[in-house]
């Protein structure tokens, strides 16, 4: 496992000390979970959810049950013009 590559995918900036520690610990766990390779799973359907899937449907009308703009922005670290503010993305 390339820890830096995986951490980049997860958007985690790790210190060198962290990268080294996690590399060893995660590899130990991966070694343990490799026991699953010994099991014959030929023809077995994967389980994504334990319960039989059902859906909740309703008429397609606005219920007004969501957050107001003010509520949605109430926990934002930075706000500008009633929107979430971020560092510049486009040069």
């Amino acid at each position, binding site marked *: 496992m390339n820890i830096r590559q995986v951490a980049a995918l997860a958007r985690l900036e790790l210190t060198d000390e962290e990268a080294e520690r996690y590399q060893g610990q995660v590899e130990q766990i991966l070694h343990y979970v490799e026991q*699953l390779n010994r099991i014959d799973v030929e023809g077995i359907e994967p389980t994504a959810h334990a319960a039989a899937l*059902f859906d909740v449907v309703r008429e397609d009308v606005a219920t007004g049950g969501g957050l107001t703009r003010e509520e*949605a922005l109430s926990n934002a670290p930075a706000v500008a013009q009633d929107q979430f503010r*971020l560092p510049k993305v486009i040069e």
Partner: protein
Amino acid sequence: MNAAELTITELRSAYAAGDLTPAEVLTTLAAEIDARDPAIGGYLSYDLDQALADAEKVDLSLPLGGVPIAVKDLINVKGHPCSCASKLLHGHYTAPYDATVIRKLREAGAIPFGRTNMDEFAMGSSNENSGIQPCRNPHDLGRIPGGSSGGSAAVVAAHTAIAALGTDTGGSIRQPASHCGIVGLKPTYGRVSRYGLVAFASSLDQCGPMTRTVADAAALLEAMAGPCDRDSTCLDAAVPRYTEEIGKDIRGLRIGLPSEYFAAGLDAAIRTRVEDAVKALESLGAEIVPVSLPNTEHAVATYYIVATAEASSNLARFDGVRYGRRAQADDLIGLYGKTRDEGFGEEVKRRIILGTYVLSSGYYDAYYLRAQKVRTLIRRDFEAAFETVDLLASPVSPVPPFRLGERHSDPLSMYLADIYTISANLAGICGLSIPCGTVPVDGRELPVGLQLLGKPFGEATLLRAAHAYESVRGQ
């Protein structure tokens, strides 16, 4: 009468008799928390003024009228903090809405009071992963309360709460309930809405009651359960009257003992306590049957792939954009990376890395897809067992609560202790932990829980059997 020591049933009687008011109970609880919680660390915060304001409007005739409920710090209660015991959110997030469980409990008259400590984002079995403060077992302050709902278990056991809510992804209600000597129930997947819970592993998470008695657990579950139009995995069906199960007999009930749950690694004294409890169930008329769950040995490996994969996806939302603490950076990618590295604790980062890896291109089939297939085998084990028995009985934890710090450097050994609880989440069935005595550890008596597991949506039978046992326990 110290109001903080009452059960929900006793509190309701005291209200009905006019002996107490909700305001008096809240004030007493706040005083008890101030006096005793600093040594335990079960609470992250509480807001007496807000609870007293809620109490003024409460209808005491409702099923939970005026009952204060402590809430695990990952459940949104409008106007309360909801930090998930993470530095990323602590002091930087106030819930703008009520979770469905909170809405339902309020409709039943309950008052949310106090935010309980936990392992950060519910990742852990000892509460040592709290990013805010350690939590201690009220029966021995040098030992862990269990986790991840360690705070909820500790405050109910310490009589600094009447009852609490926890969540259980791999045992996080049942294991701390066992370690602290209280009742903890994990409902069937889909029984209780997950809307408003900060998600850890969405196919495994369920919210449930943590109480001092089985009757109290039945009362809370009856109010919490039921359909939700904001959670498509929540069953759209009427909720049974769980409280009416209390006092019914269990003659003829078939209870299975999974041989794999009494195998090597189980502490001998815990085994004896659990076997004594099974004998008590038998004396009440239950029929005890040996059963096998042959894929048990693969449950921990399966769980730590499925749960970390889902967690790595769910925790992507904590990026410093819409809520939480934001690290300073010149560009957006740097902002994400720094915010997450500074905000998340060690266990959370370790699990995100593992989960990201097992989902990554080239490894998905080998790890994640294979684990989902083994999950099917584990589910089938339970389906086969429940063709011949109504319930399963087992220990909750193979070991008594350990000392704080004792295992912190070895995550795998910590994961392996979840062996008796995590299969229920993978299979989606219901389960509970009920105190079944104590074991001596270094001169102190520490609680032990009996686990009962039930069929999907079989909470009524689970509660009936647990109450029958509770009523003869210790005789």
